[in-house]
């Protein structure tokens, strides 16, 4: 039995998968932007990854129990920051979600994602039973809904939704009763078609308002156009793809934000179904490896932290990939590790840092 966490105990298999996904992401960013005014973007992303890796090592040094100790403080800091952003954050694409940190624009809602993982892990770890009561559901819902609401009014529906899977997965592991789970699923299953049909009863201008609310950065026809172009790119890629740097949808810019939210469409066009399989299986490997870490965690607190990270990353992949093939509306959720973006990359590595944190301490007493 060791008494000190060591870097050798990092999950190197997990990091290999992360490295592979990041490398594919960098190549696709290069392919998408090298012939445009944005060329060289991949180097910026390399820097972000570098910062992320350092942050990952940094956060792994602080015992996650210490972090969970401070959960209420972190929660208050997180909410305060969100409020501050609403007040002074500057508007980009019509939404207030950015603050200047040392000349870089940071999306503070990314920070909230880390905090909610820690806060909910602490809540679930504190429970002494395997039975969730209605009071528990209410508390979990409130804890999640407050930051989600603040993010929603920025407005950033995508990131607000990302907080929910942390609560859902956590509640499931904390011992939600099967019949509660069944009722919950049933309610959701019923709400989806009702909501979908309700939408049709709205007047066109009301639908447009909702549409504009969901993604203010686009014109009323923009969202449909973007998804169509994305689908065209994916479909035109075929089984083998058009080849690196040869996707017309990608190279001519028809794929919207092809280096970020729609990077999977760009990859699907150039690398085909084969490329998509490789990427999605790498993500599955990532999720399975994370779950494995959860299974091997020293205590439930550690497991909840790891599974919070897993829930968020899994949700990102699912929603982003569904959007690219037109199964879900455009919500601005990036593909972790592949989409270009400082804040989201930093978040992913910090989240992975939490996982390493738990893993390193599995044998430590």
């Amino acid at each position, binding site marked *: 039995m060791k008494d000190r966490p060591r870097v050798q105990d990092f999950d190197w298999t997990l990091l290999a998968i992360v490295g592979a996904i990041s490398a594919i992401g960098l190549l696709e960013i290069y392919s998408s932007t090298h012939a445009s005014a944005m060329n060289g973007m991949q180097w910026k992303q390399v820097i972000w990854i570098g910062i992320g890796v350092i942050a990952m090592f940094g956060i792994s040094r602080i015992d996650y129990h210490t972090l969970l*100790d401070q959960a209420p403080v972190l929660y208050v800091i997180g909410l305060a920051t969100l409020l501050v952003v609403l007040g002074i954050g500057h508007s980009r694409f019509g939404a207030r979600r950015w603050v200047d940190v040392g000349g870089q624009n940071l999306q503070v809602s990314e920070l909230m994602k880390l905090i909610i993982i820690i806060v909910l892990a602490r809540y679930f770890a504190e429970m002494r039973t395997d039975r969730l009561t209605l009071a528990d559901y209410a508390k979990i819902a409130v804890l999640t809904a407050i930051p989600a609401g603040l993010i929603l009014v920025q407005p950033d529906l995508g990131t607000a939704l990302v907080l929910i899977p942390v609560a859902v997965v956590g509640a499931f*592991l904390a011992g939600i009763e099967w019949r509660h789970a069944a009722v919950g699923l049933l309610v959701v299953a019923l709400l989806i078609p009702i909501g979908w049909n309700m939408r049709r009863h709205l007047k066109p201008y009301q639908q447009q308002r909702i549409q504009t609310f969901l993604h203010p950065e686009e014109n009323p026809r923009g969202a449909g156009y973007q998804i169509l172009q994305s689908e065209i790119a994916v479909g035109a*890629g*075929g089984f083998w793809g058009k080849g690196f740097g040869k996707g017309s*949808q990608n190279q001519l810019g028809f794929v919207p934000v092809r280096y970020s939210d729609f990077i999977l469409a760009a990859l699907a066009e150039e690398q085909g179904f084969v490329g998509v399989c490789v990427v999605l299986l790498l993500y599955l490997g990532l999720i399975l490896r994370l779950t494995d870490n*959860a299974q091997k965690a020293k205590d*439930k607190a550690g*497991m909840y932290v790891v599974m919070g990270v897993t829930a968020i990353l899994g949700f990102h992949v699912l929603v982003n*990939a569904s959007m690219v093939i037109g199964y879900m509306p455009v919500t601005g959720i990036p593909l972790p590790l592949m989409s270009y973006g400082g804040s989201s990359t930093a978040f992913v590595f910090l989240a992975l840092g939490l996982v390493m944190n738990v893993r390193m301490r599995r044998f430590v007493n």
Partner: protein
Amino acid sequence: MAAWNAGDRKIPQGRLALVSYVSAAFVIFLLVGFWKLQVVQSGHYADLAEKNGIRSIPIIAPRGTMLDREGRVLVDSYPSFSILLERDNPKQVERNLPQIAEGLGLTLQDLQQQLDAARFEPKFLPIIIKPAATEADIAFVESHRADIAMLDLMMVQRRRYPHGNMLASAIGYVGEISPQDLEKNPDKYKPGDIVGKAGLEREYNDQLEGTDGMRRVVVNSVGKVMRTLDNVEAIPGKPIQLTIDEDLQAIAEADFDKNSKMGGLIAMDARNGEILAMVSRPTFDPNDFAVRIAPKEWAILNTDPQTPLLNRAIQAQLAPGSVFKVVEAAAMLESKAIPATYTAYCPGSATFYGHLYHCDHAHGQVDLHRALVASCDVYFYNVGKMLGIELIHQYANDLGLGERTGIDLPGEEPGLIPSEEWSERVNHHKWYAGSTISVAIGQGPITATPVQLARMIAAVASGGKLIRPHFLKDATGFKTASFPLSDDTVKQLTDAMWGVVNEPDGTTSGTVKLENVDFAGKTGTAQTESFALQAKLGKHLKENGWFIGLAPRRDPEIVVAALVQGAGWGSSVAPIVRDIVKAYYDKKNGHTPQVSTAENITPAQSTAHSLATSPTVQRP
């Protein structure tokens, strides 16, 4: 260990495993989605992707030029640039809008309106913010390539009418194809194509319009051309040579512009129907239509009571007045219903069927020659009464009145020659014999157009050869109808028309004689209102004046019909015709034609003279 942490090690392995399975299921779900798009429907999307990036840019073919008979350019086309605004970056557009407005001489409000109007168009499609860019505009765009990158130039071909409104009524104008025409020819045209809308532009549209070329280019998502795939050059439209003589045309235009006369004129080669000049006043400037006519301007042109869009040379259906006496005389001589030696006494008026009919003065005893030369109404009242409406109708028809001449212009009007059948069909009552008295001097329910009268006089002077007036120089296959008149009739009538110009008691009082030119003609003065209306108005409106001139008097080379609405007497119209005939001979004899010396003619004074208010205009 913190108080909150139970250090619970009971990890729910089963539930974690379930999470793994659900994750795997999600990945399979996604892969099925990708499979559908990338394998099952791949071909469909590959097609869409190809169409996406390839855009066909039309290369507009220039329309053919129109030349006069000597090859001088009357109408041509020139390349011009339209200024496009790319809208894919709305914020930047907004920021640069004031600078763009200032640089292109547009108002900010106007630009904003254009942007608003296009706000539901796909953002990657640029809009045309200025259709006809000036050199300064182009320089502005070129010099701001770096800082106002959203401006672009597109080459188009525009119609140009270098002489402005000269010959405009015959030439017509071009414009964007109408939805109806587009529907008729969906394969040939696309929206926004420029086609001939009126006049010769429309008549000869098929020759004039070329075949647009096409450049296929690869564009990016904001429509920027990345490279050219292939190029199909435009085939320019064929030029057409007109029979118009620019020199004669200019003289005729100048004559009409003096005192802003209202009316029409046609000058043609009486041997083959080649039109040498055609004027209609008031008129318009076809250049106004060439770019994109503002709806307001169009409304003004279209609702103007003076009908500037009407080509009076072929569309003004007015009472021919005394010009019709030539038809009357031909009928009298050819039908032999009345002896050629018939004379009548003119005391200045005569009574028929209980009504008093005026003559302009007492001519005394007149024979046919004198009656034509001095235009005695009483003589022809009697002739008309003796001939009857049916005989008059027959000869008028045979001489081409009451039917279209077949001139190569759209919209020609047929005029009207009444008959018993017409009266019953249109008026639902028997023909009043008294009406024949008015018709006999070209008044009442009888109308003709200038082109019909020119053709009729040419036919009378050439033994009954009815030529077809036309503008196209190389026209072949135009049939000339023939209605043989005896040499004697031709001699009598042409001598009388010579008398109108050259004899002392002729209606032109010898004012338009031409030296060394065998110039003949016939005046006409048509009331624009009945005597009853005159009494009611308490004033006398000005008459429409006609003069149909020809030279030489037999087998003429040139015939000119001129109508001046509100001119008063036909004799005052004669100088316009004289100027053209003189210019024709001057040219023929190697002199430079001189521009107009026509005496001043009182212009139309009020719009009451317009066609709409003229009681002699009849549309059966």
